[in-house]
């Protein structure tokens, strides 16, 4: 697939050596195209989070190829990788990871400012991003003044602000009730329908069911893929 935003081929990841060798991933292939939401499921220790970290360049594979936005990142220098990550991929975590001393709009605008966008322009784009998801009213609130669901939705807006078109989300609904969790998935789904791509790690079937494809991992192997319906 030549137009993949993310393209993993034969990826392995090992920790330790000898008797202590742990094979976290044992030859996983995964391609993600624009517009796709792909969920990764599997029991604890199956390699879900390792896969996500390798997909985003936060961890390096033991062997295999990882192409992010068309660029091979295995073997890339730390500086070049950091720059590519900043412009190509956004992360969403279970515990939101918003900067507590910045308001919602400042959090969303932060990646743009790190990329050298002037603060006025960055703030304008941040406000537009919040407006698109109906959260303009929390723009000037700090994270501890928002609900968990609002924080997570701000985190997703931050992950997709600017030129980035790939979201890597690790259990983003883990701390949320069912209704709020569905707001978060609606936002991810809408973003993908508008052309972004998202890789969602979740242990909850109800959220995985929002995906176009569901990859099931077990013991570091891709056991099955439930395709589009």
């Amino acid at each position, binding site marked *: 697939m030549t137009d993949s935003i993310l393209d993993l081929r034969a990826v392995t990841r090992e920790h330790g050596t000898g008797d202590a060798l742990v094979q976290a991933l044992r030859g996983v*292939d*995964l*391609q993600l195209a624009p517009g796709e939401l792909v969920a990764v499921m599997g*029991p604890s220790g199956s390699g879900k989070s390792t896969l996500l970290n390798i997909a985003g360049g936060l961890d390096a594979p033991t062997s295999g190829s990882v192409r992010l936005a068309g660029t091979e990142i295995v073997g890339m220098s730390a500086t070049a990788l950091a720059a590519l990550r900043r412009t190509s991929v956004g992360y969403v975590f279970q515990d939101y990871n918003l900067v507590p001393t910045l308001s919602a709009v400042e959090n969303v605008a932060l990646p743009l400012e790190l990329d050298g966008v002037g603060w006025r322009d960055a703030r304008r784009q941040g406000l537009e991003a919040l407006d698109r998801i109906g959260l303009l009213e929390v723009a000037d609130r700090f994270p501890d003044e928002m609900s968990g669901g609002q924080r997570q939705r701000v985190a997703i807006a931050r992950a997709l602000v600017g030129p980035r078109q790939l979201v890597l989300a690790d259990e983003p609904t883990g701390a949320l009730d069912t209704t709020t969790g569905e707001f978060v998935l*609606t936002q991810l*789904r809408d973003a993908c329908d508008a052309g972004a791509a998202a890789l969602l790690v979740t242990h*909850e*079937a*109800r959220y*995985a*069911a*929002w*995906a176009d*494809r*569901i*990859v*099931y991992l*077990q013991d570091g*192997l*891709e*056991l*099955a*893929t*439930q*395709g589009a*319906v």
Partner: protein
Amino acid sequence: MSVSHGILSLLEERPQHGYGLREQFEAATGGTWPLNVGQVYTTLGRLERDGMVEPDGATDAHGRNAYRITDDGRAQLGRWYAEPIARDGSAREELVAKVALAVANPAVDARRVIHVQRAETMRAMQVLTQRKRVASQAGDVAQRLVLDSQLFHAEAEVRWLDHCIAQIPEAPTMPTEGTT
């Protein structure tokens, strides 16, 4: 199902007579599917007519005839275990019985049976979620809640299947299927 599939699964392990099959069937399914011996012998009669089982030739101390599974019976049983259950009203009881029988039958890769079913249930959840999204966009709260009910049931099924996978000892090998 499928009392007949349950009986074929038990006969795949060893030849038995109807009374023994009734006891084993109830034990294997944890009492979720009670049977009377008349049902068992009626079913055995149909299975024999259809060539799925045949008399073993042996009788026990009470003069009861044992039956054994035929090659056609094995093929029929293999198809049942290989395919997911359609999600209609009777599905859940059949699923519980099927998983219990698969676990009790050493000739069956119970994990594979469960994974096939899990994939089918996830597919159903994807369809329900798409329909729910349409209902939400149309502001149809009633339809959305009906779909939510179906989703909660399906979700509970997936959680139970995941629990089953975690409880069953690892098979020697697991085939990879449907990879992209």
